[in-house]
């Protein structure tokens, strides 16, 4: 896929928007304003933005629990997402789901607290996409931890045997909670798993948003053309701990490793790329940054000022009529 200047600016905006929401959530969590959990995805924005930005509105995206970037890039309203995350009545599910739910119309598939459950759901969306014949494609994001679940095998196998239009995109940030990949998987590269399902598997620099977008969209077009699933492994890194709140040790990785990765920050890298290529000026990018900081502040204020749901809401919505 050829990226226009506008495409690139959109990618930049989507990465920065994801980061700003993420930073806001880290802060809200520290101020004890998040009732539940927050798994920050700061450092991984290139994967979410690269995978989701150029999908069709009616394509399906299976997110991970980490960060907001992919969902925002798919068109989810961040303000209401945040309200849901804060457990407020103005959230997508009136606060009943937490940040694991997004509006169906945005094309975000159900995700949840059980890591690895995304795989069969994505395969199922792939069955719909193929049978309904509207040329839809499913992109399933998953982490290296999820890759350790048996659901991966059943689902990748089904998608391959049935030639479903699913693109499996791994955000490999090297650690499943606190365990390094080398402690948990016998292969070094998750892309190697593709051999077992007779599908293409590639390794991408997950800090390079253009590389991610290019690889994902190439696989998306293959899937759209009826040529079946593919696997893309994006090597990336999360800057923060598995979850906010100090429940996790920091000793499982070194400060040196963290600093090494931060030298290749996906937003800083792409900003320099845009400047080098003459796609934007520093002033233009600063203006985007400023605008998004403002957007997130307003969304956060709105979410925090939103009412709690009426208690009666706890007892509704179990069954469809």
């Amino acid at each position, binding site marked *: 896929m050829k990226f226009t200047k506008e495409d690139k600016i959109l990618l930049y905006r989507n990465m920065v928007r994801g980061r700003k929401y993420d930073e806001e959530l880290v802060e809200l969590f520290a101020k004890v304003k998040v009732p539940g959990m927050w798994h920050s995805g700061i450092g991984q924005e290139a994967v979410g933005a690269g995978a989701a930005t150029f999908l069709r509105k009616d394509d*399906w995206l299976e997110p991970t629990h980490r960060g907001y970037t992919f969902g925002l890039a798919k068109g989810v309203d961040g303000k209401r997402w945040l309200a849901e995350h804060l457990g407020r009545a103005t*959230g*997508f*599910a*009136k*606060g*009943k*789901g*937490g940040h*694991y*739910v997004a*509006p*169906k*119309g945005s094309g975000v*598939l*159900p995700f*949840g*607290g*059980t890591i690895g*459950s995304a*795989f*069969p*759901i*994505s*395969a*199922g*969306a*792939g*069955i*719909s*996409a193929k*049978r*309904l014949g509207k040329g*839809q494609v*499913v992109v399933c994001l998953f982490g290296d931890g999820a890759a350790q679940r*048996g*659901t991966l095998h*059943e*689902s990748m*196998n*089904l998608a391959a*045997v*049935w030639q479903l239009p699913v693109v499996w995109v791994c955000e490999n940030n090297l650690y499943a909670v606190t365990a390094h990949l080398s402690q948990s998987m016998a292969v070094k590269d998750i892309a190697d798993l593709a051999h077992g399902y007779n599908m293409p598997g590639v390794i991408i620099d997950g800090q390079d948003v253009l590389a991610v977008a290019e690889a994902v969209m190439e696989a998306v077009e293959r899937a759209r053309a009826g040529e079946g699933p593919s696997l893309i492994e994006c090597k990336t890194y999360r800057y923060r701990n598995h979850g906010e709140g100090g429940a996790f040790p920091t000793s499982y990785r070194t400060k040196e490793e963290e600093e090494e990765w931060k030298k290749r920050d996906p937003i800083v890298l792409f900003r320099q790329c845009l400047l080098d290529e003459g796609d934007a000026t520093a002033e233009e990018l600063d203006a985007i940054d400023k605008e998004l900081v403002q957007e997130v502040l307003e969304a956060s204020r709105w979410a925090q000022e939103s009412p709690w749901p009426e208690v009666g*809401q706890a007892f*509704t*919505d*179990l*069954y*469809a*009529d």
Partner: protein
Amino acid sequence: MREISMREALKEAIREELLRDQTVHIWGESIESKGGGFAICRGLTDEFGERAKDTPLAETAIAGSAVGAAFTGLRPIVEIMFSDFAFVCGDEIFNKMAKARYVYGGQDGFSLPIVVRMKVGGYVSIGAEHSQTPLAPFMHAPGLKIAFPTTPYDAKGLLKTAVRDDNPVMFFEHILHYGARGEVPEEEYLIPFGKARVRREGDDVTVVAIGYMVDLALKIAEEMVQDGVSLEVVDPRTLQPLDMDAIMRSIKKTGRVIFVDEDVTCCGVPAELMARVYERLTEAGKPPVPMARVGAANVPIPYSPPLEKAVLPSPEKIAAAVEKVLV
């Protein structure tokens, strides 16, 4: 009226729904090559192509893909060959199917139309992991609907209703019922969920029997006529929703009730039903009635025929429970 087997009745229901609605699809192990585990779907692939399809041997993918497909526009019917295997895909059934609508806050008329068909039941010596009737775990999961037909007529009408329901439905089929024959009209009909059926009228004791237990209860009811005991046999047909009113009506008439279920007795459906009956009565300011339950013993289902017989409910065990409440 013509008589057909439950196997044929189930196939007719699936075929008619596949014809009626293009978004209805069915998949599961050996669906195209064998018609599924118990040959219900034989021939459907010839008629409907990929809409009736074999999956890999992978229950998690079968159930999980149903969630994804139902979310995105299909109305999948999936087959889990033995209900024992439903525990392989517990996350997909209990965490996803059951909870989805609630955690989405019902937004935009959220629905998850899935039918999970599962064979249940023992009495055929196929061991601890092929013989269970695990009803209680599903009834313990708010958000699921549960149907368990006991006649070919009910099987067809309830399955068609299940396919048209916008919620995930656990549809249980007893292994000893597949060959059972009964009257089924040629013309189309549906049976609503939440409507029990009195299978036999009687005056002395209400027997609420679930699934194949209805057959055992009807058998012992005939035998007990000689002893001057008249049993009323009530088949709930669906456990979620549950027709408590019908059960209470029968109890009002007989003043005594026993519950019969093939599932393990501990924390089983009868335990829940006994509690509900007690609550209904006390809330209405009425005295409790004699109650008893019959279920499988609290052990895994053994393989050897005499051992299995000792563990599972039998007409004799039902009769013993009847005697208990008659005292």
